[in-house]
């Protein structure tokens, strides 16, 4: 998915590092990576460490880091030229689970801004600190999002949940997944990671509260990804 853009920008001094947030690791993420045959580092984050360290709350999310290791854009929605979910294999209508069919319908209403994002990334690759898309450290901190007591508690519960689930202690993990969603309902990586463990379509179950469709409809699909906060591209 990112391979083509990476090949284009790598000669300009930019490397792409993908991180798969997947509790089941290569078991679930591996086939996507293998199919993409990336030449860039493709990492596996079974504990969602990146969520906590960089403030990621949905995927795909990108963080820009300059040559000195300084973040110049904190976590925000990131799109290659096409959004990943639009390129996934399309099931034939007769194969569709009714819930899945509704999800696909709803997903069409999600706002993605691939052209905007890739233009900005290209500009930064070429112009570095002179790019209007590179932010100052103060702007980076300010945009990194608030983390109060509830958000921190959500992270602690989510980590316990994943740890217990990976150890096969699924019943003990469930209350922690539920607590994470309750404490930080806007964190889609927490919710979706939990839902998919109980149902591959992230449909309603008795195990977890909420489901993809209901939670997306509650906020409106157009708000699933915040609008990119970027200046108008330069001509």
């Amino acid at each position, binding site marked *: 998915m990112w391979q083509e853009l990476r090949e284009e920008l790598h000669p300009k001094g930019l490397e792409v*590092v993908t991180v798969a947030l997947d509790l089941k690791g290569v078991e*679930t993420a591996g*086939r996507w990576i293998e199919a993409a045959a990336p030449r860039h*580092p493709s990492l596996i984050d079974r504990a969602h460490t990146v*969520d906590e360290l960089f403030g990621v709350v949905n995927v795909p999310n990108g963080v820009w880091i*300059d040559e000195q290791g300084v973040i110049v854009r904190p976590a925000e929605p990131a799109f290659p030229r096409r959004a990943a979910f639009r390129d996934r294999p399309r099931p034939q209508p007769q194969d569709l689970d009714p819930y899945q069919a509704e999800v696909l319908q709803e997903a069409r209403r999600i706002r993605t801004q691939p052209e905007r994002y890739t233009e900005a990334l290209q500009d930064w690759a070429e112009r570095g600190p002179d790019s209007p898309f590179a932010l100052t450290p103060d702007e980076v901190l300010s945009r990194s999002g608030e983390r109060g007591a509830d958000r921190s508690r959500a*992270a602690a*519960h989510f980590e*316990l949940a994943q740890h217990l689930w990976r150890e096969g202690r699924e019943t003990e993990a469930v209350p922690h997944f539920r607590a994470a969603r309750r404490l930080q309902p806007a964190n889609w990586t927490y919710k979706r*990671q939990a839902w998919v463990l109980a149902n591959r379509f992230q449909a309603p179950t008795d195990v977890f509260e909420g489901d993809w469709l209901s939670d997306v409809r509650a906020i409106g699909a157009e708000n699933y990804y915040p609008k990119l906060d970027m200046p108008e591209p330069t001509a």
Partner: protein
Amino acid sequence: MILTEPRVRRDDFTARTGWHFEPEGACRGDLCVSLPEAPGEWLDAAVLSERLRMPLIHDEAAGLWGLGPESLGRVLQTAEAPDLTLPDWKGEPFALSSLRGSKVLLLAWASW
């Protein structure tokens, strides 16, 4: 981070959270938070919880503690990127810091 007792090795804590220890206390970026006493090899999780506003959640039945990230206002206290090391999909460890000198797009995605 996950603890099996309410204390944590200083080096493990620094590796996982980026907080390191100076004479002034626990520091990250330009921010230092004072501690009641100079830390030894082991840190008391309850002290870290109180001083750095890190929630400490005890799951008694599971025999585990979860020490969450600091809640000091913003997710990032410094624009310096955390020193992240994760396995690549073949299992080899990869340190983000090995890419110093390049611009990096760190891209979080998921199979779900």
